[in-house]
């Protein structure tokens, strides 16, 4: 409980900073929208092919905007030795990890909440009633992305060329999440519900649980290194 209380203070700090500066959220949102335009120019899909392309394109957009957010995730801590101050405070390191995972998750979900309907509008899809299910799958995938992304954002924090390094390390590790979310979304768009994709959902859930635990355990070493 103490852990959660500490984490909630840190989340509050990050959210307050974000509300006042509006850096990550605005950039991520417009980048995501921009990607939808680029996709449209690149593929020029006829309307009936849009549903089969949608899962891949959507998830690509989330992946790229998420990476953009992750490279900025520890930026406030890098300035003015804030990280040293945080580490000096009597606080569990795991709370910092939880807070950062949660903060990044919130940022990405807010962007997804806007980009998803926008995709339906721009690509003339009419399956509006499937949106909540698609969003739930996106949520599970995004959680997996944030869980490992936060850890490796901390790993690459002190490396040279960290913005380039992060996706290079993160994307191969994200293959199970990428495959599972895209296949599940495909099933939902094709058949209307996710019952055919239960194995994929289990895999996705397993990924989230395994790496949230692993990140929880090793984050302390990474952040103190």
């Amino acid at each position, binding site marked *: 409980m103490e852990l959660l209380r500490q984490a909630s203070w840190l989340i509050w700090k990050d959210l307050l900073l974000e509300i006042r500066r509006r850096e990550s959220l605005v950039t991520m949102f417009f980048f995501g929208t921009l990607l939808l335009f680029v996709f449209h120019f690149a593929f020029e899909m006829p309307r009936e092919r849009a549903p089969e392309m949608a899962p891949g394109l959507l998830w690509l957009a989330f992946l790229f905007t998420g990476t953009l957010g992750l490279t900025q995730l520890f930026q406030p801590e890098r300035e003015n030795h804030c990280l040293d101050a945080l580490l000096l405070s009597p606080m569990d390191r795991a709370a910092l990890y939880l807070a950062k995972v949660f903060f990044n998750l919130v940022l990405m979900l807010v962007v997804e909440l806007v980009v998803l309907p926008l995709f339906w509008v721009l690509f003339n899809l009419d399956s509006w009633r499937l949106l909540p299910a698609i969003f739930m799958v996106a949520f599970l995938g995004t959680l997996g992305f944030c869980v490992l992304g936060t*850890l490796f954002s901390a*790993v690459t924090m002190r490396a*040279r060329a960290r913005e380039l390094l992060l996706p290079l*390390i993160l994307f*191969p590790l994200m*293959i199970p999440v990428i495959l599972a979310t895209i296949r599940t979304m495909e099933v939902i768009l094709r058949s209307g519900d996710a019952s055919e994709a239960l194995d994929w959902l289990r895999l996705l859930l397993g990924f989230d649980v*395994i*790496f949230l635990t*692993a990140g929880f355990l090793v984050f302390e070493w990474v952040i103190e*290194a």
Partner: protein
Amino acid sequence: MEKRHGRSRTILGGLTLVSVLLGLYWGLVQAPPDAYQGQLQRIMYLHIPTILTAYLSFFIVFIMSCLYLWKRDRRDDILAYSAAEIGVLFTGLTIIEGSIWGKPTWGVWWTWDARLTLTAILFLIFVGYLILRSLIEDENRGAICGAVLGIIGFLDIPLIHMSVYWWRTLHQPPSILRPDKLPWENVHPSMLIALSINFAAFLLLYFYLLSLRFHVGEMREEVKRMKLYGGA
């Protein structure tokens, strides 16, 4: 001390050379050509040992990374780094050998089959490991970050494996270790001998390279110490 290590390394190197030559002889001359694939199948004598040693390498990275985080012994980290380098080399070789075999057999250099994809992803993860190590200057920091990637990467392998298998499968099912038959009933005995010799040869080669690379890492460490404390 160092002299004795140097001598055992030379002996290991000599053994490696002999066993590789012996493996080539069995693989190219003694073993009969395959009933369906003909001479082409002989590449298997290299392909299977390379990928198995590459897997072994990533397992060593995982174990040494755990040990390093636990005990903080510099030598564990040097060993993990060395194993990752050689693992990338062997995975790369596996992919190239597979392509050479795949072109005449399947008609394509590359196909998105599960096992091929898995090998390529492993290759990418550990190339990422090497790049990460080269981009972090502080040694202890690099070692810790590398160890975390080594552990997470290894834990991810079963999940990647599952996902790409559900996604697609085209690769030959294993022909020697099958659940329904004993190994020596599935293939000609001299093929099995050729494969075993080559596997032993690759293991020796692997440990020879690993010990050389480990030695280089230790020397690097010593040079750094000398620069810091001005000799002695």
